[in-house]
């Protein structure tokens, strides 16, 4: 399809009013515009979620603080968690996927452009619905405003008796609505990658980013749907007087935990797999070597995808399960570390002997490698049930999953920002500012999350709004909070760099990194139709073949 050449008009589109341009963005079905909308909207929520985290850290900087009330503190950790997972991490990764997948597989758009727009707006309205709870959550009872049930909203906290008003309803509906959007995105990713590849791009010749997003799409449709189902049940309980999670009528609170975590654990991999994809694109280009062990990389990710559906109850060791349940989930958790370890060795193998160039994207990717390794190691510690009985629900757990989500996911997302910024905007970012961003954020990250492990081991539980002095937690909490300000400063530098470079940056050209995948073969930013003629590829690195006709890749693949 669509392989004929399109006649182009070179006439400038002419000056349009701001209203017309905004209208164009609102009604767009173009994957590049929707990708950028996803990213901008996620960045907006990143700042909000970051402010909520900062409020919590100021409250905990020293014992017996009164910066916020306990009620507000509960709302802050609920909103911080929900926002960061559902309205920052997912949309930002969907945004990059939506933007990059068609470009990398040589297609002109996603398989279902209108479904793409629908998914974005469902996601966006889900976020607005969640934040509307700050004003609309009072309800008839006048109690509460934003949801305060924690991001996993265990029953019976969510029952009408304990969550009067509408705040929990806003939480459930926001996740229901955005979940439908996410399922749409999952369907779209899979279909685009399966059915829209350019001639010659067999599954074995796809860029790893496409492969990993295909697996991520499969995980989205299988993991987000249970959450959607569970939210429907919660709404039935709250609105129609159902008893799914009502222990007084024989319902089970533990069933909600199972339903939530059968979504919740694959969700972590839904977030980390696209991050792996960014690392797998960035590391080869800045090591000047093709990726090491491409088939193993794909196989390992497929393994992770499968096994991730059988580890969920390691979040529930402290609930009290049978011995066989504990054993099963401990063993599966250990097993999933194996393919993850394989991937780390593959990235190291890619860098080994390469001509490594430490530009900003590479710095973030390398930091990701080491931080993700540590996050994986604490994950294995928590995955063994006896250890988890000791440290479950402590700050050690908080430190562990922030190491994954910030140290793993956010670092690669920043790397991806710098790597593809020239493609999206047509201009280069400022390298010096990017390095400032990296080092500030790197130092802040380690101050906060390295030292957060220690109060956890000393017994500090998560979600407490204050604590007694003299338990040995004070100094660590102080250091953790100081780190937050370094991270905030790093993010400010980042935002400034993006805005400044968008207007004043050097013109990037179509291929500033001398890279090898198809998105760099078209102009920056790409035209609406992406490619003038649909490319035909012979190998995993089509641009290498183009630049080195005397020694093309397809001779060796």
């Amino acid at each position: 399809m669509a392989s004929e050449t399109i006649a182009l008009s070179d006439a400038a589109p002419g000056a349009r009013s701001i209203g017309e341009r905004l209208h164009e963005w609102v009604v767009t079905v173009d994957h590049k515009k929707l990708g950028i909308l996803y990213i901008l909207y996620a960045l907006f929520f990143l700042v909000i979620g970051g402010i909520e985290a900062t409020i919590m850290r100021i409250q905990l900087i020293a014992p017996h603080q009164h910066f916020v009330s306990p009620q507000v503190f509960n709302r802050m950790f609920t909103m911080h968690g929900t926002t960061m997972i559902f309205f920052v991490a997912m949309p930002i990764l969907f945004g990059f996927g939506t933007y990059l997948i068609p470009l990398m597989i040589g297609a002109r758009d996603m398989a279902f452009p209108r479904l793409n727009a629908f998914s974005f707006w469902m996601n966006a309205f889900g976020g607005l619905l969640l934040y509307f709870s700050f004003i609309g959550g009072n309800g008839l009872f006048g109690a509460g405003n934003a949801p305060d049930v924690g991001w996993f909203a265990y029953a019976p906290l969510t029952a009408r008796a304990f969550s009067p008003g509408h705040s929990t309803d806003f939480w459930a509906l926001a996740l229901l609505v955005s979940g439908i959007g996410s399922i749409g995105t999952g369907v779209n990713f899979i279909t685009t990658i399966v059915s829209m590849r350019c001639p010659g791009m067999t599954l074995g010749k796809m860029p790893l980013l496409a492969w990993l997003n295909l697996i991520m799409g499969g995980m989205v449709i299988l993991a987000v749907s249970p959450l959607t189902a569970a939210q429907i049940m919660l709404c039935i309980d709250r609105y129609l007087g159902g008893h799914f999670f009502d222990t007084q009528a024989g319902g089970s609170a533990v069933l909600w935990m199972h339903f939530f975590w059968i979504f919740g654990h694959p969700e972590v991999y839904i977030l980390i797999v696209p991050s792996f994809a960014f690392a797998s694109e960035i590391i080869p280009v800045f090591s000047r070597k093709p990726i090491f062990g491409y088939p193993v990389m794909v196989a390992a990710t497929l393994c992770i995808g499968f096994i991730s559906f059988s580890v969920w109850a390691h979040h529930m060791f402290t609930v009290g399960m049978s011995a066989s349940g504990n054993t099963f989930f401990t063993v599966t958790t250990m097993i999933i570390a194996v393919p993850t370890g394989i991937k780390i060795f593959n990235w190291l193998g890619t860098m080994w002997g390469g001509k490594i160039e430490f530009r900003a994207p590479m710095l973030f990717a390398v930091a990701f490698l080491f931080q993700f390794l540590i996050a994986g190691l604490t994950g294995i510690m928590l995955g063994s049930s006896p250890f988890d009985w000791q440290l479950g629900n402590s700050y050690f757990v908080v430190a562990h999953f922030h190491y994954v989500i910030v140290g793993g996911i956010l670092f690669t997302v920043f790397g991806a920002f710098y790597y593809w910024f020239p493609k999206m905007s047509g201009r280069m970012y400022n390298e010096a500012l990017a390095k400032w961003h990296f080092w500030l954020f790197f130092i802040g990250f380690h101050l906060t999350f390295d030292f957060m492990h220690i109060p956890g081991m000393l017994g500090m539980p998560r979600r407490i709004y204050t604590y007694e002095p003299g338990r040995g937690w004070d100094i660590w909490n102080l250091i953790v909070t100081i780190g937050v300000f370094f991270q905030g400063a790093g993010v400010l530098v980042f935002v400034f760099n993006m805005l400044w470079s968008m207007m004043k940056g050097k013109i990037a050209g179509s291929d500033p990194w001398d890279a090898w995948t198809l998105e760099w073969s078209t102009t920056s930013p790409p035209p609406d139709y992406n490619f003038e003629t649909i490319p035909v590829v012979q190998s995993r690195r089509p641009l290498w073949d183009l630049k080195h006709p005397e020694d093309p890749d397809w001779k060796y693949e």
Partner: protein
Amino acid sequence: MSEAAYSRPSIEPEWSLPSRGRVGMFSLIAAESAVFTIFVVAYIFYIGKSLAGPMPKDVLETPIFITICLLSSSLTIHLAVRALRNAQLGAFRLWWFLTLTLGAIFLIGTGREWQRMISEKGLTISTNLFGTTYYSLVGLHAFHVTAGLLAIALTMIFTLFGKVKPEHSERLDIFSLYWHFVDVVWVIVFTVVYVIGR
């Protein structure tokens, strides 16, 4: 891009990829299966856990007739799509209308069943765990039947205006996948609710 750089000495096989519609529909079906799995698991988990009556064995009547209707509609939709592909528009209209009728009978049957249980047996969604799980599982399925019926009715209206042509048979074929899926789900719901759950 120059042609020369890409040209490879071997002859490539013709490039064809799976149809977008089918891949998309199968993905959607996978997602829907996950949703139904959670509801079925909840139903099975709560069998016999209700603290108060009425219990399933007191109120449930096996809906044989509407089950036969719904399952046969899978056959009629298949025949309708085949007729359209062979450009037999009259046969298509007949089979499509039959599908619509059979689906509607199923929905009406479910509605009457619910009405009987609510007004005669006093079982509502908030009565006990059985009521909660029964109405939500059967209701979720009925919702999917309703969505499918709306699409079938819309196509029927287009058909009456003569807008449906043989070239649309692939789209209707893809839609029929959804309808078959709804039927398969009913087989599972039927087994769980009326066979195992009693």
